[in-house]
């Protein structure tokens, strides 16, 4: 490969309601464009291979692992990161439930966990434990699962 000739594209990303032009190659993972080019660091790097879910964002309302999506694929889509989940300064009910249930331990996985849960509740406002088991596959090494589960139910009933 001729590295001197890497294609540079000015991609337009719609993030948290704003259109942002980023000067990165089309094949840059969305995760790194969000963190390094847009400067929103709430979306975390955990594995880079779409295993852990720490980088989960919403793309057109669907939970996506942003390390596995390129900037080219994300261009034109509505992207929401953890920073954009609260609306007009009012926390999303999942965030509120997370605080009320004291969910995070180290907290590093929780941005992705919260984004995954917010997407679940949008599609399924009253998930059962089995629904949660199917939908929430994020890794948490601290082991906050029991608080996560309780907080999901709390948010669903909020």
């Amino acid at each position: 490969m001729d590295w001197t000739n890497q294609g540079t594209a000015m991609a337009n990303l719609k993030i948290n309601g704003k259109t942002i032009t980023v000067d990165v190659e089309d094949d840059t993972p969305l995760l790194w464009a969000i963190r390094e080019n847009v400067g929103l660091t709430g979306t975390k790097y955990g594995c880079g291979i779409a295993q852990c879910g720490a980088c989960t964002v919403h793309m057109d309302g669907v939970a996506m692992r942003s390390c596995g999506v390129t900037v080219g694929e994300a261009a034109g889509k509505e992207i929401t990161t953890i920073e954009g989940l609260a609306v007009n300064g009012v926390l999303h009910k999942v965030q509120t439930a997370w605080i009320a249930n004291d969910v995070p331990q180290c907290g590093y996985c929780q941005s992705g966990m919260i984004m995954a849960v917010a997407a679940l509740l949008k599609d399924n406002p009253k998930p059962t434990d089995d629904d949660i088991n199917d939908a929430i596959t994020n890794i948490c090494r601290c082991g906050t699962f029991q608080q996560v589960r309780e907080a999901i139910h709390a948010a669903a009933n909020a």
Partner: protein
Amino acid sequence: MLPRTRKGAAMNQHVKINRRSFVVGAATAGAGLAIGLDLPFGGPAVVRAADGSPEINAPEVNAWVVIRPDETVVIRIARSEMGQGTLTGLAQLVAEELECDWSKVTTEFPTPGQSVARKRAWGDFSTGGSRGIRSSQDYVRKGGATARVMLIQAAANEWKVPATECKVSSGVITHTPSGKTTTYGKVAEAAAKLEPPADVKLKDPKDWTIAGKGLKRLDTADKVTGKMIYGADVKLPGMLNAAIKDCPVFGGKLKSFDAAKIANMKGVKKVVQVGDSAVAVVADTWWHAKTALDALPIIWDEGDNAKVSSETIAKWLAEGLDNAQPAYIGNQNGDAKAAIAGAAKKVEAVYSYPYQNHATMEPMNATVLYTPEKCEVWCGTQNGEAAFAAALEASGLPPEKVDVHKLLLGGGFGRRGMTDYVRQAVAIARQMPGTPVKLLWSREEDMQHGKYHPITQCKLTGAFDADNNLIALHYRLSGQSILFSVRPEALQNGMDPAAFQGVAQTGEAAIGYSVPNLLVEHSMRNPHVPPGFWRGVNVNHNAIYMECFMDELAHAVGQDPLEFRRKLMGKHPKHLAVLNAVAEKIGWGTPAPNGVYRGIAQVMGYGSYVAGAAEISVTDGSKIKVHRIVASTDPGYIVNPAQVERQIAGSFVYGLSALFYGGCTVKDGRIEQTNFDTYNSMRINEMPKVESVMVPSGGFWGGVGEPTIGVAAPAVLNAYFAATGKRIRSFPLRSQNITFA
């Protein structure tokens, strides 16, 4: 290597400051380092907050307590917060004695550089061994109590009344006879100028109103909005980003690399050698750095270790199980070998436990700004002073020109007590003076350059008399010593005393059984894979070996595993109490639901007594569903039961993840697992609720973050035997084709 004693290390301190003695010689290190330094803090200090911004000019009542005019109480926390809740717990202890308004409490981390400059005002920074609260509770409570006395005295002075006529509640001081009131915020400046009282009386924990309560954590809000800044999120003006590759074979060297091949790749600024075994690419963004690093031609000198594999290690460790081989004796009474030789009945089993990676969610990272005048580090670390010492050594600068700014850790579990990533980051930044550089490891680098849970095997032999009484137990461990690699000065005539955690005769990890003839020994064999303190450390494998074997012994003589243990625990009432607590809670002795089987285990570690029990069902002999987990702990005192509950549950997740999915294998001298696809971790669907039973009996301070992990695996493994009649003695379970249902 010549073994050095702790005392020796401490004495060396006065001669020469080096990293090990700094870290180990805790009591003298700070004083030693402070000699000859100007103390920059005469009077109330200005301390930067965790985010590096300067604290507003608020009076410091003492090292632990700053009170702002708006009544905000800033409590300084020297230990690290990695999710375990120590930050909140320590603040509760200070606030309890301070008698302040908890809703006004906030926290900040003093830096190790400031601590050294102030004659180690904040004591030990290390946050491992489940010591965060238990080893500093005494002096932080005194810090709070001392500040309270000074604040009350300041009010009394202002009113010209005796302090004994004043009382305080929630930061409001009242002169009882007159009814006059004032607040901490109003008298803090005057209080800061008073001499601290020589001695203060601490509250009886029975009277606690802030400590001992399941208060919500102080650090949650920013964790749910994405605002929390971890080390990986640090941004400095003009900062560049570095990606690194260390020789994949531990002990190997970097031979050469062809920087010209990537020089024109987008964003690349510099390619640098790091130490003698690693190379880093520095670029505008980390993604560019990583992409270029992946394309960089590198030639390694892998050395002889490239011949080592899991098989060669296993063979070497198995040889250590032979009684003819030398071994260190860690615990003995009677004559186990003779008793076994003459016994009516003998049971023998060989177990093994693999390497494990910490796999913190946030990979290792550190950001460094180096100039010849100053080296500043921003990182998550479990030991601010160790990171400081590493930065001193790597920068070559004197202590007053170095500092470390601690951030919250995206997981620690023991990994961030090590400082390899700090050294690397400083070594990179030193080659780019004046430019801040953030070094972030890829997950692959993190998986392959861990400080792994040590590898061991264990041969256990039990002997019974004709009446099926256990008369002898021989516990022969073969394998790796962490201290040999990490703190050789702590070895005792070559022996690693920590190797016997959980099976020691006495101390904070003492065995809970009395056996007339007991021999616990360790044939030390240290493969080239670097070991480290991995949550639970040596308690993990020792508890699995001992507790699974206790189960084997019980079944060998047709006895109930709980009753069998109880007979050996008469002299260990605290061990027995937690075991009884879980037995009662899980309904041991009563029928389990159809198809559900139970297992039980207990151990002592980190000064606490813990027990666990599991209910599982097994499909097709290989699919395990964990239905219920019950865990009991006696840590003496509980500062925040809600956080203790989370540590207990988290210990099961961490321990069972390792049991089912973990295990790092070695091929061609390197670790084979590279990411979460090959080193998986439990998900929510696999984890039941953990029912915890806290039975703090008082009179001692035990740790909480680690001990419970010891009982996680054996409780499930013993239940698996109950369900299938099959005993699993080699891990992880995935290597036995056993997984979650």
